[in-house]
């Protein structure tokens, strides 16, 4: 069973389509800027990767928009794009063979804040009828399924920032359990006062004010990441079925997945990222030498960057493989981040060009990584995508070319 991606939708700061996103990341143009969605003067974090060009009214029918959070608006938008891109008209497909599996980190954060705020400032009668369906983590999957009449298996995976890969892995499994196509990936949007305050407690957010250097993983002065919003959803199918139905394009193959978990704090045991990468390579039937680029998790927190650099060099040797993190241009998208990396990696393999990591001024000594700081042509046939979720989640995926 070979899983391929036949349609992609993107809603992020770098663009509201895959092509716009790809063009911007190849140019190395960061979309990080000052927070505008609310007054951030009270908070130490001033920057974000807001999906500034995204206006819900242009993409989501108002009837649905009022009953959903921004995270779902972004998800519905990416979902519709992905289906159209894949040339799939859901009404023409067997209803039970279309599945939806999305990743979510924090659900309808802004919607939830608004309703809790009403409850505590005005009383229980002021809580709206849509709180019960907008805030919970399953809202995006449910709304996509309803909007497109997809009655197959439904899933919602929450492994924080590893979610985009874990949802895709679960989707690939559904293809061998009778699903003809799966709409999968993830989005997130928690840029509201309460969402940002919660994120502050991890101590991982950058408090820099210069967008050009605020998020610089693997840099000597790395001191955190910039949060963003949005993500990607894509259509996954079995390759021969996609060919048989005359899919307009195949972006690439999803050849390997694996997930591991870090040991409990204080155990003295090694972290699990390297093992996830090894297992994903084994799942794909490939070795490190086959991988032409690594899309790093690249948290931008020195301790975590060091751990990741060690995992990469242990597997590939010192400066043994190009490493990149185009998420430096969108900020970290939580459940949407790894999903967007996956489709970006697919285009890197398709077009044989590696998108850059921006913001890095001086790579930290000792990491021994071949960081891609400018777009670089490379005859790459396979990419490894890494993702980690808060608390200890590790996920890895291998994307390969369809060229023979």
């Amino acid at each position: 069973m070979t899983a391929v991606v036949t349609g992609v939708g993107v809603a992020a700061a770098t663009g509201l389509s895959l092509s716009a996103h790809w063009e911007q990341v190849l140019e190395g143009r960061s979309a990080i800027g000052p927070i505008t969605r609310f007054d951030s003067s009270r908070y130490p974090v001033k920057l974000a990767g807001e999906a500034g060009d995204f206006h819900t009214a242009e993409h989501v029918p108002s009837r649905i928009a009022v009953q959903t959070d921004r995270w779902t608006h972004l998800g519905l938008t990416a979902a519709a794009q992905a289906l159209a891109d894949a040339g799939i008209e859901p009404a023409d497909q067997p209803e039970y063979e279309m599945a939806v599996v999305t990743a979510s980190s924090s659900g309808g954060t802004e919607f939830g804040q608004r309703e809790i705020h009403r409850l505590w400032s005005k009383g229980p009668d002021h809580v709206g009828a849509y709180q019960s369906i907008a805030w919970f983590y399953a809202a995006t999957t449910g709304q996509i399924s309803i909007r497109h009449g997809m009655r197959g298996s439904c899933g919602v995976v929450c492994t924080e920032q590893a979610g985009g890969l874990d949802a895709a892995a679960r989707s690939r499994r559904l293809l061998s359990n009778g699903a003809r196509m799966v709409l999968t990936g993830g989005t997130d949007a928690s840029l509201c006062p309460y969402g940002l305050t919660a994120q502050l407690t991890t101590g991982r957010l950058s408090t820099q004010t210069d967008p050009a250097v605020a998020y610089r993983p693997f840099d000597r002065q790395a001191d955190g990441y910039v949060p963003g919003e949005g993500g990607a959803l894509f259509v996954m199918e079995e390759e021969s079925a996609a060919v048989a139905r005359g899919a307009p394009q195949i972006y690439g193959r999803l050849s390997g997945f694996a997930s591991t978990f870090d040991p409990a704090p204080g155990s003295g045991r090694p972290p699990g990222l390297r093992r996830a990468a090894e297992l994903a390579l084994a799942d794909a039937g490939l070795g490190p030498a086959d991988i032409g680029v690594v899309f790093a998790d690249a948290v931008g927190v020195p301790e975590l960057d060091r751990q990741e650099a060690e995992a990469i060099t242990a597997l590939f040797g010192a400066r043994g493989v190009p490493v990149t993190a185009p998420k430096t241009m969108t900020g970290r998208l939580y459940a949407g981040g790894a999903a967007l990396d996956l489709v970006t990696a697919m285009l890197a393999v398709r077009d044989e060009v590696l998108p850059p990591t921006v913001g890095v001024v001086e790579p930290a000594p000792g990491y021994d990584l071949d960081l891609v700081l400018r777009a670089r042509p490379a005859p790459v046939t396979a990419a490894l995508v890494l993702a980690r979720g808060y608390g200890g989640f590790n996920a890895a995926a291998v994307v390969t070319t369809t060229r023979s």
Partner: protein
Amino acid sequence: MTGRTAVITGIGVVAPGGTGTKAFWETLTAGRTATREISLFDAADFRSRVAAECDFDPRQEGLSPQEERRMDRAAQFAVVAAREAWADSALDRGGLRPERIGVSLGSAVGCTMGLEDEYVVLSDAGRFWEVDPTYRVPQLYGYMVPSTLAVEVAWASGAEGPVSLTSTGCTAGLDSVGAGVQMLVDGLADVVVAGATDAPISPISVACFDSIRATTPNNADPEHASRPFDLHRDGFVLGEGSAVLILEEKSAAMRRGAHIYAEIVGYANRSNAFHMTGLKPDGREMAEAIRVALRQAKLDPQAVDYINAHGSGTRQNDRHETEAFKRSLGERAYQVPVSSIKSMVGHSLGAIGSIEIAACALAIEHRVVPPTANLHHPDPECDLDYVPLTAREHDVDTVLSVGSGFGGFQSAMLLTRSGRA
């Protein structure tokens, strides 16, 4: 499923009516209801003031002061249930490789109590929209992301294999066990800790169900407020709790002489793509999930001898699933006992699916079917055998358990007595 079969070798439960699997089963077989007036907060201003609450003292249940502080109530439930499940499995934890232990937890609303409690402080009871970050607690982000629940169970289990949290609303507790079974069947782990947890009895959850009139307004008679399949039912009763199962591969479990409660032989979920909260009366998509689960288990409807219903106690649900059973099982639907334990332990959203799987495993173990409490006036449109009021001795070899939830999700799972499938 394929060559590998998942079996249940350990059970842990935190449920209204008593903590621990033994107390849980006693509640169910006594037909005792654990629904009561809400005591977890002052609910005087709310439409529905009834809930099924756990009498749960984290310290008495073995959590340390630091664990208690760090964890939301939902996480506390899950960790206590996981520890009981591990002990019940009699597995030698020291002999297991951490890389081969997986976790598949489920939850509908995550750490909603912690999130709300902290919001009250940071917004100063709704005074500031731009909440004051000065008063933030270190675990706040952990409350915002429900994955924390899986993290805590992984730590408590020494798991370093695949760990995930499934959050498909009110079917999450079936879907998380289904995902755990898949991990095991696919060989990604040798032992999977699978279950679900929810602790939603807080003002925001009660208010949001109030606003759509989904929960019961029967505040005058809390003990009898959860009345699935009864003509006088008037909404569900919110509950809380957790159940965690230890899943192992059948041959490995047999080799070590484990006690096997049941095999999990079929699972499927489908979506109605109709409405986020509404159900069509025809039960079509739930019936499809049941059919797919039967096909996967290579069983025909005649094999089913007990149905653990979703039975939430809303009119649309009770009719919807009654139709789904008839559609998928035909005549067999009329011949087998069908019951809803939500009549006793309430509807704990995502958690209840796993709590119900625990009840199904115990029904197979003890050859007893738990009753539907409070069922005095059968709804004529619900014309199956709902086991009113009293538990029944019954040779239960194969159980069907179903769940239905917001988003339009419908799930079905099949368990059999080990050795039969």
